[in-house]
């Protein structure tokens, strides 16, 4: 899990059975003590692998939306909840709720959220602590996993802050100017999962940037099942990005785009959700 704090933006991303939505009110309150008023809220998630293990309200998106709405000031008038469901695989839907005070979105970054399951078993071994290195602390072990897995090559300009969990599991945050990236890995066979997220700009060949970064990140895990959610929080939708994502995954992993969904959110931009599985051999 990760938390990013910018001067006027907070991003918190947690896994497991955490009570994420309980952070909304306290964050708004803390911001108010600094004379900062909320402009927009976005809550998103994939489909849980173990939905029954989730505590209320994360057991249903309707309940989550009700809790989020209840936590937000009325000034965020432009609201929308959407479950983007691939027709070929309804169990892998992308859930998005947005609320905004303004009808015009203004976030310059394009956020790419990649969810990967059925990771390559050999690659996933990089994220288990080795027997005998119990004496190495989590930071050093994390650094070793970053190097071993090749995560450090995804964005060589980024400073990587990494952490290894015990007996397995890994998290990292990348810091590169105002650009963040984050990776979280659960390597156990049967429910292996890795996420990769980064905020990118479309300027200065950003499209190529997105494809290149995505290619390197996917290469680390070589998953059999991938979904990519691309959020244009202020920029216009860019079809070239969508095509490049599909081209990279086809070329790198032989994954075929099985579904491509798009939805508009008032004051919060456009979300494209693509899901991929191996091309039938």
């Amino acid at each position, binding site marked *: *899990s*990760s*938390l*990013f*704090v*910018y*001067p*006027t933006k*907070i*991003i*918190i*991303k*947690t*896994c*497991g*059975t*955490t*009570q994420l*939505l*309980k*952070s*909304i009110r*306290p*964050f*708004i309150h*803390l*911001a108010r003590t*600094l004379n*900062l008023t909320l*402009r*927009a809220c*976005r*809550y*998103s*998630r994939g*489909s*849980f*692998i173990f939905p029954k*293990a989730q505590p209320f309200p*994360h057991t249903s998106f309707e309940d989550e939306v009700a809790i989020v709405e209840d936590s937000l000031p009325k000034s965020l008038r432009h609201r929308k909840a959407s479950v983007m469901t691939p027709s070929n695989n309804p169990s892998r839907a992308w859930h998005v709720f947005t609320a905004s005070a303004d009808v015009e979105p203004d*976030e310059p970054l394009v956020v790419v959220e990649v969810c990967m399951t059925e990771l390559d078993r050999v690659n996933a071994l990089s994220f288990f602590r080795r027997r005998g290195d119990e004496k190495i602390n*989590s930071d050093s072990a*994390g650094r070793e996993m970053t190097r071993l897995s090749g995560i450090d090559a995804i964005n060589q300009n980024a*400073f990587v*802050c*990494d*952490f290894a969990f015990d007996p397995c599991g890994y*998290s*990292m*945050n990348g*810091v590169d*100017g105002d650009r*963040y990236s*984050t990776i*979280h890995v*659960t390597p*156990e066979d049967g*429910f*292996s999962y890795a*996420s990769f997220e980064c905020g990118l700009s479309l300027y200065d060949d950003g499209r190529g940037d997105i494809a290149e970064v995505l290619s390197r990140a996917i290469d680390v895990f070589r998953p059999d099942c991938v979904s990519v959610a691309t959020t244009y929080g202020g920029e216009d939708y860019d079809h070239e990005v969508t095509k490049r994502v599909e081209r990279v995954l086809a070329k790198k992993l032989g994954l075929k785009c099985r579904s491509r969904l798009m939805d508009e959110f008032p004051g919060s931009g456009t979300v494209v959700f693509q899901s991929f599985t191996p091309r039938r051999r």
Partner: protein
Amino acid sequence: MAVSGFEGFEKRLELRFFNDDTNKNPMGLRLIDFESLDQVLTQVQCTVVSAVANHSFDAYVLSE
């Protein structure tokens, strides 16, 4: 911990605030002290295990 395994898929929340007085307060939310952040994270059932910052933002690795 989930009964049959550790839930991978994350929940993601983003809150964006108006920046009408960044001249007076360029650091904005980054002025929130660590204890206050930690209290919020405790409610969420997370703790900070590693942190890094640069001139643009603060990044924290969390653990459940």
